[in-house]
């Protein structure tokens, strides 16, 4: 490689994260603060006020009110907690289970056969349908929703990890580790997993974003979060019948949901660029 492209890359990599990433991090921070402090400061926004039904945004109710006179602003802020919890928990569950299965499948052929056939089966069913079926079997509640959203995501993550591990296990330093007497569990934990962590963290952001969307979709369809707990999905659902009369009920939580998911994806893309093996190889040379 000549000097100039590697210099260009060095310059690109050392450049500041860029406006989009900075804004995304800011948006994410705001939403997380909302999730932590919103319900404490503003309450759950469940207070009904028949006199204030379907009022447009005003100084009293910044995002307007819904058909039961509840403040959409308060409910959107409080709904962040539910969405963030579902997003983070799902990411953790999916990474732990899917990541472990993927690493094992990538390293042991017999695990590969079993796990990948199961994954094929699960992936043949549309994720949202599978989630609806699981919620109806297991009953409502936060834990159920997290399980229902995790199950369709696990095969995808397991597949990704499997492919990453398949390429890592063929690298010379794995053979070198075997040749100094490392046992298989040590090889997996110390040599394979640390080199797969980058891809795993990128996948985490995508799973998190997808989980927030899935939770909203489930709540919108009426099988997600119970109506007394505000979530972006059921706030949007409660506004769908009044869309032409009171578009603000759907618009505000919808826009915030979109910004949140977009931000997480932008951060994920940035991480992917950072961990891309091809870019890393250029850095090393």
């Amino acid at each position, binding site marked *: 490689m000549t000097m100039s492209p590697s210099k260009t890359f060095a310059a690109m990599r050392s450049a500041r994260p860029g406006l989009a990433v900075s804004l995304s991090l800011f948006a994410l921070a705001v939403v997380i603060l909302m999730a932590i402090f919103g319900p404490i400061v503003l309450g759950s926004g469940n207070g009904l006020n028949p006199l204030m039904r379907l009022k447009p945004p005003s100084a009293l109710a910044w995002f307007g009110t819904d058909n039961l006179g509840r403040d959409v602003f308060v409910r959107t802020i409080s709904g962040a907690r539910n969405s963030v919890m579902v997003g983070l928990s799902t990411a953790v569950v999916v990474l732990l289970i899917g990541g472990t299965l993927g690493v094992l499948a990538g390293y042991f*052929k017999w695990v590969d056969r079993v796990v990948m056939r199961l994954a094929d089966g699960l992936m043949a069913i549309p994720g949202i349908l599978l989630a609806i079926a699981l919620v109806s079997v297991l009953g409502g509640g936060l834990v159920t929703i997290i399980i229902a959203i995790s199950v369709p995501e696990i095969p995808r993550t397991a597949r990704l990890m499997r492919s990453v591990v398949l390429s890592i296990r063929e*690298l*010379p*330093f794995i*053979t*070198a*580790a*075997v*040749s*100094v*007497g*490392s*046992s298989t569990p*040590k090889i997996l934990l*110390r*040599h394979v997993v*640390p*080199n797969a*962590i980058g891809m795993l963290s990128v996948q985490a952001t995508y799973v998190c974003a997808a989980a927030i969307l899935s939770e909203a979709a489930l709540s919108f369809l009426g099988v997600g979060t119970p109506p007394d707990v505000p979530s972006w999905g059921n706030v949007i659902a409660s506004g769908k019948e009044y869309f032409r009369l009171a578009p603000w009920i759907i618009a505000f939580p919808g826009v915030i949901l979109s910004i949140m998911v977009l931000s997480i994806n932008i951060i994920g893309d940035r991480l992917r660029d950072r961990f891309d093996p091809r870019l890393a190889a250029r*850095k*090393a040379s």
Partner: protein
Amino acid sequence: MTAQQPFLSLRNLSVGFGPQGAIRAVRDVSFDLEAGKTLCLVGESGSGKSVTATSIMGLHKPGSAVVTADRLRLDGRDLLSCDEAQLSGLRGSLMAMIFQDPMSSLNPALTIGFQLREALQLHEKVSRKAADARVLEILQWVRIPDAARRMNAYPHQLSGGMRQRIMIAMALICRPRLLIADEPTTALDVTVQAQILWLLSELQREFGTAIIFITHDLGVVAEIADDVAVMYAGTLVERGSVHDIFERPSHGYTAGLLRATAEFVPGEESLGRLEEIPGNVPSFSMLPKGCSFVDRCRFAAPSCHERTPDWRQVAEGHDTRCDQPIDDARAASALRETMI
């Protein structure tokens, strides 16, 4: 170890890949190696040198290779009957290996110090502090400048020569008694290569390590080998002392290899055209009948096409797998031919 039993002894080692081991990448390789000696395994790319080495170490992925041998003994142990856990205990402590590519043979995610410490602690119960002291000691021994600071460095922060020395340190930290070096100097420039060779001979003097050195650089062979084994198309064709092989090659392939080496004669303007061995190495699935070198051998007789040659002794400790071994008279006439 008794007097009759060599430190490392191989008899008819064969390695097959593919379904039922149908592609036989290594066939009937036999040699012995005494402690404190260096055996150079030479031959062109794809002749089975590395496969032979990884088979001794037991490094083939389970299910990927079929390894058979009448005997594969190291220090009185039958390596073929060892299970994976036993082999794992021997790797690093009794036998160790240095790989060809220093750029990718270290884990990029871990520091040098961590990887060396791990290699040590896999085999010896030592405290973190004692382990660090040993790591520092071996890093200084392989001449890593500023070793204490380098322990916290990641592989990509070091040069190729330094990484190869780290690899050597990792292989040597538990003082193995057999060291297999698979083209350890191919990726390095000549001055670094000289340092590495010097380190290996130092090691051998100090600990009596047996070394199998895989290379296709005959200059390196002349420098370090006690014995030489020449491989061609998956099998050994000639073995003997380095003196015998260089002075009196008796197999057509060995002779061809030696003639294909550039020799610089002071005072002469040009080296002239470098000699070559005509043709290509046959593929493992289409080996010729009889001797596998027959199609490229300038001395081939009709009988060479008929039967696979057996080992035949040409001198004490010098064997060849050729039915028409080169004697001095024939070598002289062949040499005259090339002069004309």
